[in-house]
């Protein structure tokens, strides 16, 4: 069973096609990167995967649960970090995590235990009472990742989480999520437009104008084009 399976997914906003007959799958325990320039359709895809939009055509299946037929089971297996921040700025870190945990059916004590465990992995156990408003952008992102992991999802979707962050924080977040992949057999779909976030072993999907224009092992594309940058530019400069 695949962690994520997308078949023939199409979506349009009025007359503008955002995604066209998209096929994609993420194997269990695999780190998959969805690489695409701005406006390629990455965030639309994430919105469809999380049920914020209803897919117009095609099928999405998460851990074998169809998002159309059994959305609650599919969403229960999913953790997500959205591109735009979703923390409540007026609440403390721990209250944000407790709120998420309650929506995921965890008890208050379970929530506190898991929040402590996830935050301590980022060295943030001393900041639990701080208002989110007082945290830097990088710390807020760490809290969002910790929150997405609280209910032990089997598939984690991370949408351009490193945008606007400094190099050290980007590196920290990437390393953290990649380590989770190995430790927890967590499947990850990491969307980005930053080429340096791709590693040779990653399952890579290149999205351009709503279509997958390349897929395979990232190392393959690197060899094919001399460098990843050259190959990516060649793929995304040609008309879709």
């Amino acid at each position, binding site marked *: 069973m695949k962690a994520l399976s997308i078949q023939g997914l199409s979506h349009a906003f009025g007359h503008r096609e955002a995604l066209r007959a998209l096929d994609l799958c993420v194997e269990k325990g695999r780190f998959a990167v969805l690489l695409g320039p701005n406006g390629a359709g990455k965030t639309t895809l994430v919105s469809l995967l999380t049920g914020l939009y209803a897919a117009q055509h095609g099928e999405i299946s998460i851990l074998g649960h169809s998002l159309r037929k059994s959305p609650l089971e599919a969403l229960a297996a999913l953790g997500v970090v959205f591109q735009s921040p979703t923390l409540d700025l007026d609440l403390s870190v721990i209250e944000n995590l407790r709120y998420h945990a309650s929506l995921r*059916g965890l008890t208050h004590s379970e929530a506190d235990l898991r929040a402590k465990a996830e935050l301590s992995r980022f060295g943030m156990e001393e900041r639990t009472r701080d208002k989110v408003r007082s945290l830097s952008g990088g710390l807020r992102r760490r809290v969002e990742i910790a929150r997405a992991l609280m209910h032990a999802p089997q598939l984690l979707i991370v949408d351009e989480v490193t945008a606007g962050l400094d190099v050290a924080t980007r590196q920290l977040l990437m390393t953290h999520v990649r380590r989770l992949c190995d430790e927890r057999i967590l499947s990850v779909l990491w969307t980005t437009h930053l080429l340096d976030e791709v590693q040779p072993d990653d399952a890579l999907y290149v999205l351009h104008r709503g279509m997958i224009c390349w897929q395979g092992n990232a190392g393959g594309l690197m060899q094919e084009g001399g460098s990843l940058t050259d190959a990516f530019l060649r793929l995304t400069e040609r008309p879709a």
Partner: protein
Amino acid sequence: MSISHALRALAGIARRESLKITGQRGRLASAIVRPLVWLGLFGAGFRSVLGLSIIPPYETYILYEVYIVPGLAAMMLLFHGLQSSLSMVYDREMGSMRVLLTAPLPRWWLLTARLIANTLAVIPLVYLFLLLARIWNVRPPALGYVAAFPAILLAGMMLGALGLFLSSFIRQLENFAGVMNFVIFPMFFASTALYPLWRLEDVSPSLAWIASLNPFTHAVEMIRFALYLQVDPLASIICVLALIGCLALAVWSYDPGRGFWAQRMTD
């Protein structure tokens, strides 16, 4: 959906709402000051102008302040309910709405839980106002405060459901002024909150007709009767129907495949 999961979500949403509201001191203060200003100033000013005959549920002549207190309690629910539409829009703009809408629970339950939580958060303020109104000699029977609870809860949920529905097609926070001008003020003034229906009929039969159709009128009357240990069956039925109708519209409008939510995405 398991019952325990649904209840934990409700508790979590209620906790968040209460934390948010208690953190907004200005909103709390204005919520309690607004009806007191109406009672203290408007009530005193109009006491001598507006004569009231004996009308149910009152069994004798009453002071004008006594008449307007249930309407002012309902006004608190109206403002709070429609301000909840503002906080829904704020949550949407700030992204925190996504956390709610991606939870593995049916959307109708998520919206209902939000509605219940939002209503429960304002009820202590309504009771504080009712207690402070005793200073103006507005003293319903002690049991009336207990009997009024379900009426206040139902009225609050009905008005909150209206706010929930409206929030689905308010695009920006700035558009809230439209809600004030086109929803809150007309609903409040074209109702029996400040003057009884027979007074409106004297002045304008068409306005009285509009007021009799206004769900807010029925929310006011339901609370008024309950405070004096009576039941207004028509008002109660209309409030229940309006709650069901507004909530159904809100659930429809937040459906990702239909409604205004989906429509907005295609614009």
